């Protein structure tokens, strides 16, 4: 009986201590009661207009229009991956564009610091819209090469292909089968991998693309976007 009573008393004591702690009357450790996280806002100001004009192939007016759109959507001056995914997904409502947006983000984020600022953005767009075919193909290779080691493996390509196909969504004609991406990757490797070593290097890639008329023509497609 004594033991049980002791146990009961100890229990009641612990419960009341917990209650008092809850009420904020006593504190166990030294940390402060209000642990509001300080949010320090990241702000980034881009380089001057003239510098950007020199670095990219856009005119002043084009840069102005670009920056206005950029700043409107990202007032802090940088895009993080979540925002990027959100923006890109809005253009593809039927499917899931987040995977591909992830790859795109990595392609734009050249210094790999997790955020894309306006310089990255403008430089990337400059290559895509005003660059030579060589530069564009370079950029595409960079996009496919996920680990940036200079080689595109079948797995990397499969990832990219799956991401592209997932943007289509479910309702397609003809119906998407599970191994369609894999088949597509096979076709790609057959075309591009000249020495059949299972990887595609940048020279193989550029060589092969320059020989393909369709690809050459499509590279010029988006010249007048801005």
């Amino acid at each position: 009986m004594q033991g049980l009573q002791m146990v009961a008393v100890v229990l009641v004591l612990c419960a009341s201590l917990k209650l008092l702690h809850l009420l904020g009357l006593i504190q166990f450790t030294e940390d402060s009661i209000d642990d509001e996280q300080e949010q320090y806002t990241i702000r980034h100001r881009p380089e001057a207009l003239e510098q950007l004009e020199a670095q990219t192939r856009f005119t002043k007016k084009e840069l102005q229009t670009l920056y206005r759109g950029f700043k409107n959507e990202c007032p802090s001056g940088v895009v993080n991956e979540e925002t990027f995914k959100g923006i890109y997904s809005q253009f593809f409502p039927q499917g899931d564009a987040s995977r591909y947006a992830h790859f795109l983000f990595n392609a734009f984020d050249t210094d790999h610091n997790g955020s894309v600022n306006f310089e990255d953005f403008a430089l990337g767009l400059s290559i895509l819209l005003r660059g030579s075919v060589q530069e564009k193909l370079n950029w595409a290779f960079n996009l496919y090469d996920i680990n940036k080691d200079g080689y595109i493996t079948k797995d990397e390509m499969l990832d990219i292909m799956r991401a592209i196909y997932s943007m289509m969504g479910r309702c397609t004609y003809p119906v998407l089968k599970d191994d369609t991406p894999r088949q597509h990757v096979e076709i790609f490797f057959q075309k591009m991998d000249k020495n059949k070593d299972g990887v595609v290097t940048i020279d193989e890639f550029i060589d092969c693309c320059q020989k393909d008329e369709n690809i050459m023509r499509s590279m010029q497609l988006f010249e007048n976007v801005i």
Partner: protein
Amino acid sequence: MAAGVAAWLPFARAAAIGWMPVASAPMPTPPRDKRRTQDGLIILNVSGTKFQTWRNTLERYPDTLLGSTERDFFFHEESNEYFFDRDPDIFRHILNFYRTGKLHYPRHECISAYDEELAFFGIIPEIIGDCCYEEYKDRRRENAERIQDDEDNENNNDLVSPDMTLRQSMWRAFENPHTSTMALVFYYVTGFFIAVSVMANVVETVPCGSSPNRVKDISCGERYALAFFCLDTACVMIFTVEYLLRLLAAPSRYKFVKSVMSIIDVVAIMPYYIGLVMTDNEDVSGAFVTLRVFRVFRIFKFSRHSAGLRILGYTLKSCASELGFLLFSLTMAIIIFATVMFYAEKGSTASKFTSIPAAFWYTIVTMTTLGYGDMVPKTIVGKIFGSICSLSGVLVIALPVPVIVSNFSRIYHQSQRAEKRRAQKKTRLARIRAAKIGGASAYLQYKRNGLLGDTLDEASKEAGQALVTKNSATFENQHHHLLHCLEKTTNHEFVDEQTYESSCMEVSLTNQARSRSSSVSSSQHGLSSCCSRRNKRKSFHVPNSTTGAERHGSIQELSTIQIQERPLSNSRASLNAKLDELNCEQPFITAAIISMPTPPVTTPEGDESSSSADYLQSNIVRVSAL
């Protein structure tokens, strides 16, 4: 798609180059850009306040006025800007919507003004951002309720269609006692009898002195049993008759039977009838006594007579969830504390806390801070927990009460506002009607002054003075011409109220007023002839028709001031001649509401007397000095 995202479309298209090397089929050709317009600034002039924005900003939402070609209708070439004759303060929010993609609702703006602006600019209010949407909806609902209230009252009060059936008029009498004297009498009579019945129930139980063969006092009810029975019968008779009449007159009997008031009525009179049926059986007389309790429900019949009671009931109904929460939390707390107290007091001797349900009583009394003192804890632990119990009781009860109070306050003030609005409405409507009739009589005055067609020649003669006034009154002239065309179309003429009433009166009194009616009819239809007669008089000034219109305004309708008019026995001709001279000399009075007896009151008699004209002039002078 959000507007800002549209600015990223070029980026998305550029990034599509990433698909090209892996494409399985050739790409389609891109659309040609129709016009490569440089993004330019647009100036929007809204009632003088200039706003500027990029053209692209506005074109983000092409299905609104500003984003589509509809804005070209507002383009003002001379100043090379788009001019809108709207409120600049609200426009600021609309333009911000284009800029940021979020529409906000400014709290200080009137909700209907805001809605109108949104409708004008083609923006649906549903896209108001989350931050302001709730407020917007609340204000809108409040406004709708207010308008609905007004409409309901109007419908109720103005339903004076003469061909209402007896049933409808009875129902109206029951619902609005102020409509007729009979209804008012009925209302007060039933109120009186409710009060009498309730008083009788109360007095019945008062001890009334002892009778010789009983030890204790007997109640008044037993002593004067017959008197009370008669009183009760009378009241129940009245209530039954009232209930049956209401049932008869109700437009929807089923709905009436289901309503709360009718249930109260039934419950109030049922005990009596049940009592009649079963007075003889001794066994059920116990139940009969219990039934008498229900007689107290008669007091609820007062809610028909008192708006405050109705509001209270409505409040309780609308706070049902808060009341439920209060009840639930109290029950939880009672059970917890009763259990604790029971086990705390179990040890002490002769403890009143014999069981947990017995401890309920103590807990309730303590939590509501009553503290009767018939049960008190004796152990220390019991006292500790008892004090915790009373402290927490205050909290638990105090929490839901402000919600209920604020609900009641809101509903009460709403009904107060409704009452005030009803009272003010009469005066407001009277003034508005006066202003309107001012406009109508302007036309009649216009006609009598003979400003139709031929007098244009005379007008040109008075060029210097008249021309100015004529230009300013082109709207009036055109309006009068339009009314004149309508007269010609229908071959009837506009007359003022008094003429109409007098003609109605005379049509009914055909015998007496035969001569008058003939003259009236001739004078009525002869308006044009009179006018044409006057047209020939060259001695006319062209009066300032605007001043004439406003000054010879309406018969005042404000119930507060009544100016008695003598039946003026002037012919219109002489009258108007003098009045026209008066027009030019008297100062300009602008307030159309100022009462003036319409001087050219058409009189049945055709007498002329200059003395009355003088009186009229003096009459006018007197009124205009107000």
